[in-house]
């Protein structure tokens, strides 16, 4: 385990953090001077998991299950348990997490604090949508049971609350049954954004998981070309647990980003042309389908020592086509970006979280290696398009949005601020919520 705490995007640097392991879920550790913040597995990209000048309370030692009810499909666990550990436990018994993000290597506490979502948002909403209740430890010494019925305002503030409302101590999750650990569906190659939206709309009723990869450098009449994948849990194939070996790893950080304009263009063209026909039927184990990048350890090192910014925005349904086209034009014109692009539509399943990111519409996520000022300027231009369309950015991915952008995107902010625990702060909170 590394002793210095970075975020997954390795930007910004936060050199003045102390870290204390939180080991007793019944009590908040003794708080010293300065603000504290819970820290899970460090998979958020920007500064929501950083606390420069303060103390991080690391939660990974709290990795116990408390109760697994394999009849009712409920799981109670400590906040430092990884989703990966949960899947290993529940899949052989015919259960699955209703919502998983693109990596299984996040803690339950982190999944709630960022109210993460997955490729099945239109069916199951966010991670927080499927949380039944949790215990919350506050710095005034209280331990509160929070659910939709009890301490409801803290419940709704803590889901997507970026760890600022206290320590999430014990979590009860609803599970969903599966008959097999395999998924089956189709992969389509599409040439235009309109085609994407037609595929997406046409698949929502019939398919649980939908998402697309987009060639972020394609321009003109190729703008928005990519591959669309959709799948459902299969009815057969057994409940074999995932293959958990890590055959690939990025062993060290190269001196420069390996993702460059040239390598990106070559990769994207080859990747796009990989599928020659319009439609292919496929069957996947859930592991490579849902967590493709988990098979490459430390892939974030590919972007070199300067790190990268992930940009994830959502634009509301009525503006989705026009705004997405504008965003993609701006990105392809800049020549910046990365092979890692996810484009999908969100449904209208509402999360209880006040600062929850998803809304009905289209979401675009992609990485940008940090090339200095021009990268930040590009993202500011993208912000303009998103704000104009009435959209917002995902705090879990952000390291640079402005106060105005944040306030505009999250109208329930004032209500949320009243629930913040005064002992808790984060780099993100000081950057965009400083005006308390």
């Amino acid at each position, binding site marked *: *385990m590394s002793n210095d705490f970075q975020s997954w995007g390795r930007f910004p640097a936060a050199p003045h953090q102390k870290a204390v392991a939180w080991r007793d879920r019944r009590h908040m550790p003794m708080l010293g001077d300065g603000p504290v913040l819970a820290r899970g597995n460090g998979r958020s990209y920007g500064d929501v998991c950083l606390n420069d000048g303060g103390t991080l309370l690391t939660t990974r030692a709290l990795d*116990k299950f*408390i109760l697994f009810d394999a009849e009712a499909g409920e799981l109670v666990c400590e906040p430092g348990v990884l989703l990966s550990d949960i899947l290993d*436990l529940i899949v052989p018994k015919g259960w699955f997490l209703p919502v998983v993000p693109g990596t299984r290597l996040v803690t339950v506490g982190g999944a709630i604090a960022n109210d993460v979502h997955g490729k099945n948002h239109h069916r199951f909403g966010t991670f927080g949508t499927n949380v039944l209740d949790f215990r919350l430890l506050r710095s005034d010494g209280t331990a509160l049971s929070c659910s939709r019925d009890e301490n409801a305002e803290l419940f709704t503030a803590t889901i997507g609350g970026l760890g600022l409302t206290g320590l999430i101590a014990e979590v009860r999750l609803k599970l969903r049954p599966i008959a097999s650990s395999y998924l089956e569906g189709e992969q389509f190659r599409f040439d235009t954004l309109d085609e994407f939206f037609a595929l997406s709309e046409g698949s929502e009723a019939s398919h649980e998981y939908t998402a697309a990869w987009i060639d972020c450098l394609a321009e003109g009449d190729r703008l928005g070309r990519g591959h669309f994948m959709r799948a459902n849990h299969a009815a057969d194939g057994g409940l074999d647990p995932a293959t958990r070996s890590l055959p690939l790893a990025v062993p060290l950080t190269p001196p420069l980003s390996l993702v460059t304009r040239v390598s990106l263009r070559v990769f994207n063209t080859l990747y796009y042309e990989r599928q020659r026909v319009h439609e292919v039927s496929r069957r996947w184990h859930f592991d490579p389908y849902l967590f493709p990048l988990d098979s490459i350890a430390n892939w974030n090192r590919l972007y070199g020592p300067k790190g990268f910014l992930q940009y994830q925005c959502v634009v509301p349904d009525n503006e989705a086509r026009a705004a997405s086209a504008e965003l993609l034009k701006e990105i392809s014109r800049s020549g910046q970006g990365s092979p890692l692009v996810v484009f999908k539509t969100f449904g209208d399943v509402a999360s209880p979280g006040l600062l929850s990111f998803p809304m009905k519409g289209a979401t675009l996520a992609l990485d940008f290696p940090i090339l200095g000022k021009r990268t930040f300027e590009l993202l500011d231009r993208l912000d303009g398009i998103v704000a104009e369309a009435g959209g917002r950015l995902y705090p879990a991915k952000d390291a640079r949005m402005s106060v105005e952008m944040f306030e505009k995107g999250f109208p329930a902010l004032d209500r949320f601020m009243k629930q913040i625990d005064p002992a808790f702060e984060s780099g993100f909170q000081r950057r965009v919520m400083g005006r308390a």
Partner: protein
Amino acid sequence: MTRIVIFGATSAIAQAAARQWAAAGGACFVLVGRNETALGDIAADLTARGAEDVIAKPADLAVLDGLSRLCAEAEEALGGIDIALIAHGVLPDQVEVTASADNLLENLGVNALSPAALMVEFGRLMKDRGHGSLVVISSVAGDRGRPSNWAYGGAKAMLSVMGEGMGLELDSAGVNVVVVKPGFVDTPMTADFPKGPLWASADQVAGAIVRAVGKRRNGVIYAPAWWRFVMLIVRFAPAFIVRRL
């Protein structure tokens, strides 16, 4: 069914091993440790992971008088013992522990006498039954006296030598004794140490233990295994080098 008793069940290595045994299915546990709440939490965790039955027995293993009774109770509770894992111990502050004879004796009580007493009890019990695996957590620190931790190392050296000898004696009686010598392990015990590439996780060490028991290995295992070569060099290193370690 596998019947397992663990002493020092709240230790990180013991917990990790217990989880692996629980996940394999068909395991019943008696967990012995000082902290009753922590034992209850571990019992719940192991149950969720697939253990058939978990009995928590809070006890202070530094109290030597009660150990024989504790062994008998564990055997009775499980109706026999297949695996006994002796994992308790403390990593003392060398300055403090060597400041007085009383301090040293107190520490040797926990790190040497208490595990030794349990080894003798279970060795006898398993020999009578003609069956069982006895596992004791020693340390690479017991392979050579170093200036910074000879008190801890001395206690572990005793366990290593006793375990090795017991294994040779009991082999023909159907009992195997595994002496586990972990290297640097990232656990709460070593939370204050700066970590480097030589450090292993409790999970890795537990994996080595579970494999050794599964194969009914008899004798010393290093965890991770490459520590055997490191310690081979350290054992033959001249004093002027060991002084600097």
